[in-house]
């Protein structure tokens, strides 16, 4: 089968083999075209992130548990955050409770970096440390961040934190240190090895399944299908930033 050849051509280590076996098995039960599209995502370590992909997230507030903060806990563990919630502590993701002032309807939802297509933080950064990767993930390059905090002034979603204290014992995959600005990375280290962001994984594990992560450019992806079939909201849509994170049920 041509799919099989394709898969073998990209073989790279046990984990990938494992994934591909899984893919091949799944593929046997599906139309071949669907699988091929999926494989096109997979990226060898030496390949750069591609503009053919745009990572996005769809959050269904109806499924999001009121009082559940598993996504926050998972994020803190993955990124080595303290989990403290003082005014100077870093939070990549937070549970936001909102109440409609007209009818009193309440929603609970996770708020994180919205990974805008036109991110204000990237526009305002004097050194170019705030950046958007080709696949739409907005990151801070701590190597050239000078800690001016202008991006925090510019972000409409209050998604960024400043590391106020020296940090030790980081997760080797998530470097972070004093004096730089930081925010949600969609767990880029996990996405690059084709895993889900920690928050999404946690939300799936506890059965809420309120967070859907995937490629917005792929019309076949679950997130694209869901966005196509149901209405969704972009936070501060008036700013025209075309966010990568969308909400349902508000």
């Amino acid at each position, binding site marked *: 089968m041509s799919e099989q050849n394709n898969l073998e051509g990209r073989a790279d280590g046990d984990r990938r083999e494992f994934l591909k076996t899984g893919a091949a098995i799944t593929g046997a039960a599906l139309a071949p075209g669907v699988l091929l599209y999926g494989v096109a995502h997979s990226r060898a370590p030496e390949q750069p992130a591609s503009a053919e992909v745009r990572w996005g997230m769809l959050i269904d507030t109806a499924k999001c548990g009121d009082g559940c903060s598993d996504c926050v806990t998972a994020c803190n563990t993955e990124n080595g955050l303290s989990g403290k919630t003082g005014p100077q502590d870093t939070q990549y993701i937070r549970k936001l409770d909102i109440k409609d002032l007209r009818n009193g309807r309440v929603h609970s939802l996770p708020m994180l970096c919205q990974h805008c297509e036109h991110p204000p933080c990237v526009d305002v950064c004097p050194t170019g440390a705030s950046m958007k990767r080709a696949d739409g993930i907005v990151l801070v390059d701590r190597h050239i961040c000078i800690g001016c905090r202008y991006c925090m002034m510019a972000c409409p979603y209050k998604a960024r934190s400043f590391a106020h204290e020296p940090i030790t014992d980081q997760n080797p995959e998530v*470097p972070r240190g004093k004096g730089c600005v930081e925010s949600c990375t969609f767990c880029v280290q996990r996405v690059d090895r084709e895993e889900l962001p920690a928050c999404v994984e946690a939300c799936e594990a506890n059965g809420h399944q309120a967070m859907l992560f995937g490629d917005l450019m792929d019309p076949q992806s679950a997130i694209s299908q869901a966005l196509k079939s149901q209405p969704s909201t972009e936070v501060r849509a008036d700013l025209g930033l075309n966010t990568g994170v969308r909400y349902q049920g508000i």
Partner: protein
Amino acid sequence: MARLGHWLRLAVFLGMAAVLATPSQEAAAGVNLPKLEKGKGDACVEDTETMRRHHMSMLKHQRDKTMRHGIRTTKHSLKGCVECHAGSKTGSVASTKEDFCMACHAYAGVKLDCWDCHATKPAPKTPGPVGKAPRPDASPLLAATVNGASQ
């Protein structure tokens, strides 16, 4: 007169150069070369001479490729350095002056700020949230395919 002034200036310059040069010679003679612990595995990713001269530019090159473009080859990655060169006593490359990075950098008096942000120790080998093997359905691409097809 002008000639005399010229010679005087030259003499002062040479004298100052001599004064400035003396302490560094003493330092070179008086301080032992750093002793480096041998890294894990058979050989480094490049030969020793290349590593000594060019490790910083390799790291910088790799840093921009990984950070900006998501290229995650492991040959020149800082994480790879740490995995092989973490000291047997401290388990770290930079927590004491005997550890691999600091031994040379302290000797040469070159400050480095890698460790302001990067972990100086390799990831723990125990199956934790970091080293965990991925589930096949954990891949967004696969989840997408499965869900997409089921609709």
